[in-house]
């Protein structure tokens, strides 16, 4: 009897109280999430992360909490914690595209390419392309395929492009030049030495690979061929270039040393103009998966079969630093120096000492788009007074390039690019400007 009365009169109130208490807890919980999200928006991500972290053991598995936790942790640079929170979010809501994309962003931030590749294709399409975001290959190159996993691999590409070259023969714009000797006649240039502009088509193909011998030793190689054909009057500057390297690589911990032999062939309009052969030593020090130092020493014999006086031995050393940021952007900077020593006796004026600076970067704009830019500057001081112009030649060459990368689908890349070269030289005939605009389509395989 009493029990029935108690159950009728007391239990409803208990239920109401319990429900109200639950609501209160839920309200407080939501308040916690809202507070954390507000902190993230205010740029106080670490504070938001700490706020949520204190409650994680109790609230893990709550999609709202896990989503906020993922956002706060990611913004605070706690990428592993963000992955864990977003995995919980996704486990609770498997079809949630937002959760998948968020998880993909955190996986990219730690360099977990396998995790990214395991996500559905539509999610990958909404992320920074793995090819563009996880390599520095707009400026840098690698012997390994991304999915090689430390094993032997071979990769290649084919590239077709069209472009316009304002100065195909790198000629001075002016045709008649003042003589350096007062009172003497002016100089003039033959017509083929005048700046010649033209449209062109270019085809290029390349192979790079590594054959792993054991955990430390491997054989690496590169073969690249390119042909450019100009239209109209500039077709006498059609050229073909072939380059190849073959070397032995040794790696240990963060270091990799590569010694390679190099060969190069350059033909102008079907006639051999230059060949090169030499050795290249490279030392790569990988600070971590995102930062790297690279240094090199190169000794190269540059030969001009029909202009033997121009033959030089080029010796260059340099170093560079490259950085891959967690958002997929990348940057590099480098410095180098050396000399080109003329091989013929008495031709010191054709050899030079050089040093240069290089910098560049790539930034993702959208999932399939990125912009890149580079700037190179090189100073060359030649070894003697030019007998023709009676001055010592000094060149200051600057080159800037700006372009876009569009990755319509994995393995494909479309690159419009503009490049400007300015060589300020004390010799009027080597003082030139050159502008090249090109669009290339590249297929990697």
């Amino acid at each position, binding site marked *: 009897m009493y029990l029935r009365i108690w159950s009728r009169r007391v239990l409803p109130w208990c239920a109401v109280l319990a429900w109200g208490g639950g609501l209160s807890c839920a309200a407080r919980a939501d308040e916690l999430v809202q507070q954390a999200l507000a902190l993230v928006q205010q740029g106080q991500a*670490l504070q938001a992360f*700490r706020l949520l*972290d204190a409650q*994680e*053991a109790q609230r*893990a598995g709550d999609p709202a909490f896990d989503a906020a936790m993922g956002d706060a942790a990611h913004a605070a640079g706690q990428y*592993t914690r963000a992955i*864990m929170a977003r995995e*919980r979010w996704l*486990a*609770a809501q498997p079809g949630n595209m937002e959760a998948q994309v968020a998880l993909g962003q955190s996986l990219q931030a*730690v*360099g*977990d390419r396998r995790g990214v590749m395991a996500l559905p294709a539509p999610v990958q399409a909404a992320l920074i392309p793995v090819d563009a975001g996880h*390599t*520095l290959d707009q400026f*840098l*190159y*690698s012997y390994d395929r991304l999915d*090689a*996993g430390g*094993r032997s691999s071979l990769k290649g590409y084919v590239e077709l492009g069209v472009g316009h070259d304002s100065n195909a*023969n790198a000629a*001075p714009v002016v*045709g008649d*030049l003042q*003589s*350096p*000797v007062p009172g*003497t*006649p002016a*100089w*003039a*240039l033959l017509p*083929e030495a005048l700046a010649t502009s033209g449209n062109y088509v270019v085809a290029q193909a390349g192979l790079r690979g590594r054959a792993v011998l054991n955990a*430390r030793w491997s054989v690496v190689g590169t073969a690249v061929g390119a042909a450019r054909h100009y239209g109209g*009057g500039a077709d006498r500057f059609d050229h073909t270039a072939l380059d190849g390297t073959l070397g032995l690589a040794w790696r240990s911990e*963060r270091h990799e040393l590569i010694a390679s032999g190099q060969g190069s062939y350059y033909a102008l309009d079907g*006639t051999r*103009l230059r060949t090169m052969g030499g050795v*290249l030593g490279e030392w*790569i020090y990988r600070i*971590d998966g995102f930062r790297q130092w*690279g240094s090199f020493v190169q000794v*190269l014999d540059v030969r001009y079969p029909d*202009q033997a*006086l121009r033959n030089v031995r080029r010796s*260059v050393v*340099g170093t560079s630093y*490259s950085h891959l940021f967690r958002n997929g952007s990348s940057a*590099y900077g480098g410095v180098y120096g050396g000399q080109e020593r003329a091989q013929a006796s008495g*031709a010191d004026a054709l050899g030079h000492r050089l040093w240069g600076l290089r910098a560049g970067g790539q930034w993702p704009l959208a999932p399939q788009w990125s912009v890149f830019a580079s700037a*190179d500057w090189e100073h060359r001081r030649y070894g003697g007074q030019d*007998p*023709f112009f*009676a001055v010592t030649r000094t060149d200051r060459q600057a080159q800037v390039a700006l372009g876009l990368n569009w990755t319509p689908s994995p393995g494909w890349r479309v690159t419009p690019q503009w490049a400007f070269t300015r*060589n300020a030289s004390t010799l009027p*005939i*080597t003082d*030139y400007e050159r502008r090249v605009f090109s669009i290339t389509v590249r297929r990697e395989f």
Partner: protein
Amino acid sequence: MTSDQKYARLALLMGMVAAWPLTGLAAAGLVQFTAGDVQLRRGETLSRLSKGSELDGGDVVLTGTEGRAQIRFSDGGLVALYPDSQFTVTRYADGAGAGEDHFVVNLLRGGMRALTGLIGKRNPANYKVVTPTAVVGIRGSAFLLAIDANGQVFVSGEQDEIEVCTQAGCVGVTAGEAVLVVSDQDLPVYTHTRALLPVPQVQTPLVAGDQVDVQGRRAFVYIVPAPVPVPVPPPPEAAPPPAPVPVSPPPPTGTPQPGTPAPPAPTPTTPPPPTRPTTPPPPATTAPPPATTAPPPPTVRPPIVFIPVLPIILLPPPPPPPVIR
């Protein structure tokens, strides 16, 4: 990592430990999340593992094909287990007081992602993840470990540095790097790619001003004679203007003579073939300045005559015989 960052991270870990639920103090770990099929084997007993369950040394966690679990340890460390994993807490001792720290877990199959806690900070040497082929030691704080169907162990670093050891030795793995352990007899192999900045390119061989002829002279440059200043007025019947006299530049092998033109070439020279030799250059349209007539074909250069006078005066040569009849 700067000392400030280290202190911040340590403070964060201490905060995480402070937030540890009182109920979990006696256990090594607390399950904070499960999804799918996750089981706990304790001794001979197999039971379903759910959120809030406690773990102790010797416990084995088994995840099914869709199973996932996240475990928070008493030192603030976290472990996320992925599908088809078998994870054992081999030895766990949180020596926050005077005791000794130990965090030894065993992953027999599957995969795990881990974030180390205070044990990994205080006593990194005693933090180990043992797999069938490798032992992962910790010098950092976050890593991913996976064992594939062939038993190969894949380890990647996500924060700071860890070390992965086999019987052949150890390698360090930092954030963004990964290694593959093929067998316990071989060193782990790095799997991340190393990208190289290409070596600076040799200047293009096409620079017009760099071309030299067979005698080493600037192949594309010749001298345009300036009209000789004649103070007397021109005769009533103007004589035909003198023909231009292109002059080849001197070879660079000679001794530089600033201010002095080079001696005349003994014979007509032929420019080198930096451009297509069989194609004559376009004539008149790109002719030199009006003071001269169209330049001669580049294949043949007429002789030059210099009469050095102070200052140097260039005189035109007599007209070529074929022209005068």
